[in-house]
């Protein structure tokens, strides 16, 4: 009996079967495989599994404790929902990429040391990029390459930090890092981690890449990369003060960009940054309640953010665009999608009875408990902004507002089922918060539903809406693009390309190319002249000579091959006599 089966192995190994399945069998296989991984996680007991020796280091593939289990549950649960949503997709590349991506995210969650962590960390980037490339448009190919380059940079920072850390401590185990705070290794590893968490100024890859992904690919991407980064930050960097500041700023940063944005999926991508800001801030505060809040928020966030991406994806799939300036009035023909999207919107904003309320308020209370007014005010501001840009702005301009005249219907049934499932989980967690609190890393004794708290939230939303109504005309989305920190590397790359195109290309073309050309041309001419000489002088005359030789040999043979039986008999007799003589005098003697 196997003691412990790595759910990531199950998924990555399971991906190998996808090319051989088709039709309904494939449709049943994908969600069932994700469900099997979920069951695997539910059944496993805390402990350390799958350790092996490698080059004198102990590799740990299975560190199972409350923290890793919490993330594993929600990763696999999101996988089940994601595959139900993607059932209609025929493109096997996307399914394989999603399975490997999900499996490697679980690999990161269960990794007990930096080697295993790094391998799965890189695998995550290299598998998820196919969910972008699978769109097969020039924009998505370019966005995918930018995504990959940024993650390779982050991976190199991480690798450098890991190498330094091993050099200093001699240990590869991945645990709380606060003993090494301020060192180069600490900083490099932290940079690698916060790049994946999309902390500004290392955030621009996210709103660049996610809107370029396929309809179903974006649902998977919204779940794993940033939240596995949240997990490693909880594990290694709880209580790092810089993260408190960065997280609080990031929560508002994302919201302000989201309020400017016209592309619906990019707007949601900026809200990932904002929501991960809540988690990063909670991790930075580092108290038990704040870290619990960060973990709970990661759980709730994966489900409601997936739901929002599913809703926006459904609109993109049916209407062909998700630009708010081109949409409007869809509630008439897509009422179910509208309701599900609204559930996701209310959850992310943190409305009472929704999952975001019970998780977000824990982080904010964590900030209050530590008397951190900066974090408290910034996170509450971001809550208001989330309500403003998703529930009010995005819902209004997508489903209500002026009629766009688009003739659309509800998306395929499997998409609706997946959105219904996610909506159910959002509401369930909102109504029964203890179901989530029971899974948190620290014991949680927190009551989200106090009269003051509920009323504060309602007041916040009502009066944010009044602000929206006052400025409604100014808020109408317009087509355009908003510069983010990717401006620096995209402009730098363009400048680099100008240098490459003009001087270097000229030098290459006019000097290096010409020189090579000249050299090769003379070499080829020389060789061809030799070959030509050999051909005319030796090969060509040799053909008639060979023919003449062959005919002379034939004439010679004719002398022996007389065709008369007694001639042959005579030759055989002579031969036998010769053999007998040879035998007696040579061997016999």
């Amino acid at each position: 009996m196997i003691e412990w089966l790595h759910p990531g192995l199950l998924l990555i190994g399971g991906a190998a079967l996808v090319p051989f399945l088709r039709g309904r069998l494939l449709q049943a296989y994908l969600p069932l495989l994700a469900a099997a991984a979920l069951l695997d996680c539910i059944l496993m007991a805390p402990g350390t599994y799958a350790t092996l020796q490698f080059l004198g280091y102990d590799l740990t593939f299975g560190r199972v404790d409350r923290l890793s289990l919490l993330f594993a549950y929600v990763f696999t649960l999101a996988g089940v929902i994601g595959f139900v949503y993607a059932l209609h997709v025929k493109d096997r590349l996307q399914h394989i990429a999603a399975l490997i991506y999900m499996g490697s995210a679980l690999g990161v969650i269960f990794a007990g040391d930096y080697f295993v962590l790094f391998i799965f960390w890189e695998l995550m980037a290299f598998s998820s990029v196919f969910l972008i490339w699978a769109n097969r448009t020039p924009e998505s190919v370019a966005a995918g390459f930018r995504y990959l380059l940024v993650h390779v940079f982050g991976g190199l920072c991480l690798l450098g930090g890991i190498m330094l850390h091993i050099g200093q401590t001699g240990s590869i185990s991945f645990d709380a890092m606060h003993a090494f705070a301020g060192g180069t290794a600490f900083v490099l590893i932290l940079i690698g981690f916060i790049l994946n968490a999309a902390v500004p100024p290392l955030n621009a890859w996210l709103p660049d890449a996610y809107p370029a992904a396929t309809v179903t690919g974006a649902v998977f991407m919204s779940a794993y990369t940033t939240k596995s980064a949240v997990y490693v930050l909880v594990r290694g960097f709880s209580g790092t003060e810089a993260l408190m500041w960065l997280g609080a700023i990031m929560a508002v940063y994302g919201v302000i960009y989201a309020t400017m944005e016209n592309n619906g999926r990019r707007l949601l991508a900026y809200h990932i940054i904002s929501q991960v800001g809540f988690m990063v801030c909670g991790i930075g505060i580092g108290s038990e309640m704040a870290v619990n809040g960060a973990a709970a928020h990661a759980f709730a966030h994966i489900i409601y953010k997936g739901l929002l991406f599913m809703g926006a994806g459904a609109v993109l799939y049916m209407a062909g665009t998700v630009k708010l300036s081109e949409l409007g009035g869809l509630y008439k023909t897509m009422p179910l999608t509208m309701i599900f999207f609204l559930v996701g919107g209310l959850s992310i904003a943190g409305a009472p009875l929704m999952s975001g309320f019970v998780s977000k308020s824990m982080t904010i209370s964590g900030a209050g408990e530590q008397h951190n007014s900066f974090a408290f005010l910034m996170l509450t501001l971001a809550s208001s902004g989330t309500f403003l840009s998703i529930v009010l702005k995005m819902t209004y301009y997508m489903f209500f507002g002026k009629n766009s005249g688009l003739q659309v219907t509800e998306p395929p049934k499997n998409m609706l089922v997946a959105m219904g499932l996610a909506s159910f989980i959002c509401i369930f967690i909102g109504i029964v918060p203890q179901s989530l609190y029971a899974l948190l890393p620290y014991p949680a004794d927190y009551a989200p539903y106090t009269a003051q708290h509920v009323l504060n939230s309602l007041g916040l939303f009502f009066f944010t809406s009044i602000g929206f109504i006052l400025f409604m005309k100014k808020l109408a989305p317009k087509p355009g693009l908003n510069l983010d920190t990717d401006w620096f590397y995209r402009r730098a790359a363009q400048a680099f390309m100008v240098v490459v195109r003009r001087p270097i290309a000229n030098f290459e073309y006019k000097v290096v190319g010409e020189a090579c050309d000249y050299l090769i041309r003379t070499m080829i001419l020389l060789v061809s002249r030799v070959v030509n000489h050999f051909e005319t002088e030796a090969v060509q005359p040799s053909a008639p000579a060979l023919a003449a030789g062959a005919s002379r040999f034939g004439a010679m043979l004719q002398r022996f091959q007389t065709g008369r039986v007694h001639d042959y008999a005579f030759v055989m007799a002579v031969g036998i006599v010769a053999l007998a003589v040879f035998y007696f005098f040579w061997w016999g003697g």
Partner: protein
Amino acid sequence: MNGLRRLLEDPQRMKLLKRVFFAGAVFVALLEVLVVTVLHLGHGYFWFDGLPAFGSLYGLISGVIIIIAAKFIFYPLLSRKEEHYD
């Protein structure tokens, strides 16, 4: 959805809906004041979050701050054409 459609497309009902909305906002703000001043159910971590109607006040301030920052300060600075990088 037909009920919703009638509600949204009839200017008369729309006006009513707006009134109900503003009444709701005022009602919630009053309840917030009530909870802190009369019922003493609330507690604050700071001097400000226990003030009467903190949520409503901060909601209005936040909404306006974000709209002004996004639309009046950063949008003019950062907005470009969609083909900017092509």
